[in-house]
């Protein structure tokens, strides 16, 4: 089995949670594997990140380079091309940086590429069999991958359970000297922080969250009326923001807000993993969707197969009745 590497994201000296999940996925590919971590960056942040990996990796390759102070995928790719041995298996978290880096890296390494891997089903010789999802998680697939000339795999965050990190730490190997100066046709200018928006959905115990099933902008009021009656806020999934029916600040998900309510009413939301990634703290999840196959039903506590455009107004009326009765 070829050597397995995991490219580790870090920020402010802290490694991303995915670092430990990548180690777990490496061991699922090869139980005997002693995966090697690769970290790139600059200065004290990089050093403290290297020292924060515990014993998940027996060896840690450090690429210190001022050009890599910010993880510009175009530059990181060039650095990795210089240090990675041929036929390597390279694991990267499937999020915005991995999506940026991994496909091009596989071309330059002349190796196989599979994105968004959820599980490893089998390894037989030079054939790796992994599990992916298609159509927003409605169906899964087994994918066969010839790793005889290496592979680049992006791993879905949360799909592999991080193994407990034992005390100690791997040996740090400084690879900086192999890289030299880096330049690319894409230059990082800065980061624009998301606007706060009118309502802070992270502050509510109950969220009435709407997805594509709300169908049109004029229907958003249906969810708002329910939220008002319940003392909740309306949040939403990506398609609602894409369609400009609600502001970006209302979006729950990996590219939106992370919320920790007590109760989450998912209304007409299919349940893509990018959306679920924004729901933390295990709220009580009630899903209402007219598609009985919607993936949201796989993760919800309670599910109702119904049309939200009819269900929600009736629910609102009932809440108001209850409130009025209690007020008397």
């Amino acid at each position, binding site marked *: 089995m070829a050597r397995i590497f995991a490219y580790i994201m870090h920020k402010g000296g802290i490694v991303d949670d995915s670092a430990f999940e990548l180690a777990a996925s490496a061991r699922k590919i090869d139980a005997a594997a002693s995966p090697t971590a690769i970290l790139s960056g600059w200065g004290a942040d990089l050093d403290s990140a290297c020292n924060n990996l515990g014993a998940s990796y027996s060896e840690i390759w450090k690429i210190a380079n001022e050009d890599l102070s910010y993880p510009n995928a175009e530059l990181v790719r060039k650095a990795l091309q210089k240090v990675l041995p041929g036929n390597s298996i390279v694991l990267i978290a499937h999020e915005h940086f991995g999506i*940026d880096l991994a496909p091009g890296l596989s071309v330059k390494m002349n190796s196989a590429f599979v994105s968004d891997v959820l599980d490893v089903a089998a390894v037989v010789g030079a054939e790796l069999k992994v599990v992916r999802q298609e159509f927003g998680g409605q169906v899964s697939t087994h994918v066969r991958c010839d790793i005889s000339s290496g592979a680049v795999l992006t791993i879905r965050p949360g799909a592999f359970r991080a193994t407990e990190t034992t005390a100690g730490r791997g040996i740090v190997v400084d690879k900086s000297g192999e890289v030299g100066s880096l330049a690319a046709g894409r230059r990082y200018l800065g980061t624009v922080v998301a606007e706060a928006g009118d309502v802070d959905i992270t502050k509510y115990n*109950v969220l009435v969250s709407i997805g594509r099933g709300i169908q049109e902008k004029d229907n958003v009021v249906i969810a708002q009326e329910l939220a008002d009656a319940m003392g909740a806020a309306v949040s939403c999934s990506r398609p609602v923001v894409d369609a400009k029916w609600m502001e970006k600040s209302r979006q729950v998900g990996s590219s939106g807000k992370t919320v920790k309510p007590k109760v989450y009413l998912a209304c007409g939301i299919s349940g893509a993993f990018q959306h679920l990634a924004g729901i933390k703290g295990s709220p009580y999840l009630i899903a209402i969707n007219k598609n009985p196959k919607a993936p949201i039903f796989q993760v919800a506590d309670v599910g109702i197969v119904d049309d939200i455009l009819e269900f929600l107004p009736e629910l609102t009326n009932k809440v108001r009745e209850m409130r009025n009765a209690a007020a008397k």
Partner: protein
Amino acid sequence: MEILVCIRRVPDTSENEIELNSAGNDIERDALVYSINEPDNYAVEEALQIVAKIGGSVTVATVGGEDDEEVLRREMAMGANHGVLIADEAFSGSDGRGIATILKAFVQKGHYDLILTGVQAEDGGAQIGGMLAAMLDYPFASLVNSIEVLEGQKLKISREIEGGNRELNEIDLPCVLSIQTGINEPRYVGMRGIRQVATVPIPTLSTTELGISANTVGESAAKVQRVDYFVPSPGNGAEILHGSREENIDKVLELVAAKGGLK
């Protein structure tokens, strides 16, 4: 600016429930409604808006078969100037690398300043744009959610990163960008628009015209292959309420109250 947008026709999940066929080797395709892959449609709209501002032309291309002509025509009805179908028996079974190899050959037959793809297809791997860029040695950026054309063969772009933040970059042309949904509001295409382009000829290019050797594409060259489809086990899936709507509403209220949600 000469812009190429690589597009795909895919089953529309907002119109269909995706189910397995009886053999379990594919999804049931007979009754599916197909449409343009959603992010690709945003990419075409973005290309049209750039050309409206600074001039140029928009070409849409897809690797596929005869059935895929309909999405080329749909995007031409939106305003794309040219449509090209890249089709050959030899392409069948290509993995992402194979598709990128085909597109690379097509790009090198023309002259494009900017190449756009959608960020991902529903049954895809968010891979074609990044692979194509690496093969052409063009700069690449994924998840792009704004584009501004600068002087001197450059763009200022933003990428969607975590928490709704945006990463700003300057990128040299020619380049490849993968476009995220929500970057713009794609224009509506009516039946009338589609009728107007119904008879515009769409050239079909194959391995011969593109000078692709058949052993670099298709099933034999693919290092990655889908073996089967299956439905994930529901695990500890939701308890589905089977009562009447009124009963379900009462149950929801009871549950929300019990979880501390109705104070």
